[in-house]
């Protein structure tokens, strides 16, 4: 399930800027723990953002993305009160979906 994402969406001059703070370990699989054993890879593989039901961002993530990634993007056509839904899937098959309203 993972921890909730923080999502802010604000409309300005017809352009909606969405900012997302994802909470995820994002282990690369290259790191070793103090005992010398490799920490297994655990990272988000894809992230999709929808405006109402329309996909406005589809992205592939990988091990090079930082822990607790921050993401910001803009799109046209949003209106105040519309729903923004962001969901991710990681390499362990875990998923998480959160939503926010455009303010």
């Amino acid at each position, binding site marked *: 399930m993972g921890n909730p994402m*923080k999502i*802010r969406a*604000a409309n300005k001059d017809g352009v909606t800027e969405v*900012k997302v*703070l994802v909470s995820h370990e994002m282990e690369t699989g290259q790191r070793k723990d103090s005992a010398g054993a490799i920490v297994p890879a655990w990272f988000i593989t894809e992230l999709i953002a929808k405006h109402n039901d329309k996909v406005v961002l589809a992205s592939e993530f990988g091990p090079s993305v*930082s*822990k*607790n990634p*921050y993401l910001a993007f803009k799109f046209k056509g949003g209106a105040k009160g519309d729903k923004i839904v962001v969901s991710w899937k990681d390499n362990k098959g875990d998923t998480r979906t959160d939503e926010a309203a455009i303010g």
Partner: protein
Amino acid sequence: MSRFSKSLLVLALCGVSAGAFAVDKYSGVGRQATPAEVKAWDIDVRPDFKGLPKGSGNVERGNELFEEKCASCHGSFGESNEVFTPLAGGTTKDDIKTGRVKGLSSGELPQRTTFTKVATISTVFDYIQRAMPWTAPKSLKPDEVYAILAYLLNLQEIVPADFTLSDKNIGEVQKLLPNRNGMTTDHGMWPGASAAKGGIGNGGKPDVKNVACMKNCKTEVQIGSTLPEYARTAHGELADQNREFGAVRGTRTLGPEAAKKAADASTLDLATKSGCMACHGIKSKIVGPGYNEVVARYKDQTDAEDRLFAKIKAGGQGAWGSIPMPPNAHVKDEDIKTLVKWIMSGSK
């Protein structure tokens, strides 16, 4: 007590007495500060919440204010590391229970943030009220400071999204602060008496102990650990990278032979960068002659370096066959001289 903290105390005492007697002692100079002036100046909020103004603000209002006044530097979620270190993040629910941020000692934190370190919420309130926003300090009203602080606490998952922070419940929030037990006064920088005698520090006892050895002393210094070779040489010859004055000298990391090798390697880099190595090999002909061939032909000629300098700069054709050497006006004169010397000394 160390000499340092003694002199601090003396200074502090001087300050107090000067404040009390200044008016009497220097008649006609200065005047007493008015109560209004003192009030305007005396804005600090202390850990026991002395000085905390009355007011309240909720997370939602804080979000609006933060977006408007703070987010451009701190990021919408207090996560930005571009202007200042991040405000929020790095703590767990367990930390809120224990009052000690585990990541600080385990080394798991990729980056420290305000809330991984701060032990008293009053400090954050005081700082926002006193210094923020950066461009207009002291412009926030108490209710706005409460709201922004509520938003930060919500970012840190200390309070829920519908929380309203006020002077009434800020004491409760203090009990939830992730690093509230992370502060110790048990070290020598606190002036005054030790905590056992009613003071706050340890009475000025230094953090390090340099005890003079009286018996069974070590007869020689043994180096307990050394840098591994790869780390030692990672930055080249340190002794060559010092400023040229002062007592501190970097250690010879490479040794004389390795130092020469490193210098030559940089000449090879220079040759590569200048485009020489595309046509000339060190020991073989590629398009133009190898450097060994050049040395063989020119080594007995006294003016060889000058002539080679001219040839490299202007280019030429015929001496080694019909393929021309292009002019190299883009290479600096001193670099050409370095290269010629390097070639004539065997390109080693």
